[in-house]
């Protein structure tokens, strides 16, 4: 699904556009929006008759973890940076936005407890998930690379989307792809939201290097 050019909502002076539908009944009832600063939001269309929404500002990692079924849909909302109810008016300017804290949200307005998102194999959501998978790699506490796992050998099982020991990932340096493949040697799943992994160059076992040589 391409990012829609028509603005849908405005939150804190940021205009939100629909980026990806996640669940569609008669209409999309659960979807991701993105704003003009590339911040993403989970949106639930709560009620057809009243045009009422629950909107949660979340990190890419939270969205990915939810779509990977590592956290429940409800947990994704509990980890939001900011949550609000939005009552849509006839125009965006007439919308009523009410910011809330997670504990104030009506239980009936959240996904069921213990409900994990189920994504179909080979669906367009897999491609969307890959677009969220950017990992920062640090050497000596300095950010060196951004790794995209677009070229993981196996992605049929969505649980394999997270780099795990033994996977090969293609790397980029300063946004330019480099002809080097890394094997992830440590899966630090308990690390912070930046998903930092230790990696080793495939042949020399040196931690990192660039085309110009070893760092």
């Amino acid at each position, binding site marked *: 699904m391409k990012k829609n050019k028509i603005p*849908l909502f405005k939150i804190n002076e940021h205009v939100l556009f629909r980026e990806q539908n996640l669940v569609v*009944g008669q*209409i999309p009832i659960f979807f991701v929006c993105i704003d003009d600063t590339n911040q993403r939001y989970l949106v639930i269309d709560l009620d057809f008759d009243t045009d009422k929404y629950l909107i949660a500002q979340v990190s890419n990692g939270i969205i990915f973890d939810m779509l990977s079924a590592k956290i429940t849909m409800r947990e994704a909302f509990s980890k939001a940076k900011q949550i609000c109810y939005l009552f849509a008016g006839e125009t965006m300017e007439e919308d009523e936005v009410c910011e809330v804290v997670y504990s104030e949200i009506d239980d009936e307005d959240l996904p069921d407890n213990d409900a994990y998102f189920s994504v179909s194999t080979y669906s367009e959501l897999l491609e969307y998930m890959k677009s969220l998978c950017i990992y920062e790699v640090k050497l000596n506490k300095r950010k060196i690379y951004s790794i995209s796992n677009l070229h993981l050998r196996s992605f049929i099982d969505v649980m394999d989307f997270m780099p795990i020991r033994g996977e090969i990932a293609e790397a980029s340096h300063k946004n330019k792809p480099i002809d080097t493949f890394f094997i992830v040697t440590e899966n630090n799943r308990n690390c912070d939201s930046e998903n930092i992994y230790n990696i080793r160059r495939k042949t020399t076992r040196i931690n990192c290097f660039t085309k110009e040589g070893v760092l």
Partner: protein
Amino acid sequence: MYDDLIDKFHDRLRIALKNKIFNLPTDIKVEYAPISAYRAVDVNDIAEGGFNPEAFYSQVELKYAHPNMRRFVDLDENDIENYSCSLYTDIDKLNNYMHLPRKSKAVIFGKIISEEGVTKENFQTTHVHWWLFQGVHEQIGDRFEVISYEKK
């Protein structure tokens, strides 16, 4: 191709096809055996003894039936998929829908038949696009039943 079908479709789809906004996909099924499938609907579309025709409306048809609703403001009317009635042949594909908060939601089950529209089926996702003919929305409900119902 399929020029003879255009005049049979519901108003919104027929107008879009005649205006060449898009063409019918070349891989649609015009003649097919009945397909058993599930659909997520709003409980308000369930009436005593049957269904509100809106239960089988496409998103575009819903937009024009509810013109003041903001949720349709970014609906892409150049995408033929938004003119279809969406169903799934695998009920598990509606699990996400059933776990999401909605004031009123239901899942219905029934048969898709070629006399009422053309289909395009994705066998990997089990999703079925059903582009309906004009005037069939009222009678479709005769072959569907509610299998899951929740109203808060």
